[in-house]
């Protein structure tokens, strides 16, 4: 009888010690949220960021001067490497012919106007993103304002998100990207080998009150960025007054990039 209770005493003592040792961790967690962190007053805030792309305006410019301003703006300020090998390339925003961007809308009698025309494609920042659903570490996550973000610090490079994305928006760093960066932008980091990357809706620019780089760079005004949660925003008005299409609409991902054709 005596031995059993001494054993029990030791067991209870051990477990209590273990429990007490967890206390400091709890206090750290409790005291984490300090009012000292805040957002800039200029930051753009919204409920559902979206982009409406008027391809007709873009093609006007293409006819005149083969414009690539939006692509260059994005890739240069984000230190996106330029890799020639299409198997290893990294792209956040690029153009695809109509048949490839909208394979379910393409058939023999597709309007001559649309055949082979380049469409600007990027991450659709879906409202129901399958990539976020599958990420095992929440390295890709959806913000309250709808932006599907990448946390490059946390990504383990499993590439499950690349398999899940129905739009092929994501690129992986198969090797060190730095040798392929033409001109480094010192205000933005690069990525390292082994992580997945994609368009981030210029979250770092939104935070200081600037529109995404591609939107700002487009001299034709073809790219319009705004908050769908605001019925008076330009994007909301454009969607009410124009017929728009979005990529692979039948998959239920609710992409937030709309195309006026």
């Amino acid at each position, binding site marked *: 009888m005596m031995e059993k209770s001494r054993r029990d005493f030791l067991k209870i003592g051990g477990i209590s010690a273990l429990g007490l040792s967890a206390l400091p961790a709890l206090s750290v967690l409790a005291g984490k949220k300090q009012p*000292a962190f805040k*957002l800039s007053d200029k930051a753009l805030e919204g409920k559902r960021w979206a982009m409406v792309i008027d391809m007709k305006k873009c093609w006007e410019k293409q006819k005149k001067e083969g414009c690539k301003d939006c692509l260059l703006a994005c890739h240069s300020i984000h230190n996106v490497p330029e890799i020639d090998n299409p198997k290893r390339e990294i792209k956040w925003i690029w153009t695809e012919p109509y048949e490839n961007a909208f394979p379910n809308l393409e058939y023999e009698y597709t309007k001559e106007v649309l055949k082979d025309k380049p469409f600007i494609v990027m991450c659709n920042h879906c409202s129901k993103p399958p990539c976020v659903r599958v990420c095992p570490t929440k390295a890709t996550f959806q913000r309250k304002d709808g932006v599907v973000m990448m*946390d490059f610090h946390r990504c383990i490079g499993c590439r499950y998100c690349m398999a899940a994305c129905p739009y092929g928006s994501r690129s992986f760093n198969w090797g060190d990207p730095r040798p392929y960066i033409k001109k480094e932008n010192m205000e933005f*980091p690069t990525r390292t080998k082994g992580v997945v990357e994609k368009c981030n809706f210029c*979250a770092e620019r939104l*935070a200081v009150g600037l529109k995404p780089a591609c939107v700002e760079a487009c001299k034709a005004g073809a790219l319009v960025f705004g908050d769908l949660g605001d019925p008076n925003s330009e994007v909301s008005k454009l969607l009410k007054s124009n017929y728009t299409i979005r990529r692979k609409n039948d998959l239920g991902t609710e992409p937030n990039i709309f195309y006026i054709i």
Partner: protein
Amino acid sequence: MKIYDGRKIIPGILIAAVIFSFPFWLNFGKAAVPPKPKLPKEVKNCVEPTTFMRTSHMQLLNEWRDIVVRENFRLFAAPDGKEHLMSLQNGCLKCHESKADFCDQCHNYLDIKPYCWDCHLAPKENK
């Protein structure tokens, strides 16, 4: 007391003792140069007191990178009231201008290679 295989064990223990203690006697007589991180001239206060930064800048950077990326808070109000941009390249390095003269001084001394710079760009002249 007879130690079986003593002929093999005792020399073995002596050799092991020599190997385990070599970090101490290898540098005998040579004074290691203490690290001299170059401090910014104009600004006297960092985001937190120096003593705190010395012991906990790693934890601070770890917490801050999550707060910036995941919670989108990018401004920090220091205890002295000043507002700082939470960014390695555009915040910390604005005052501590040179990675080689500041960060690397202590890190090289301790043979630590933090992987921040795999992604974050250090000022070119001082890489």
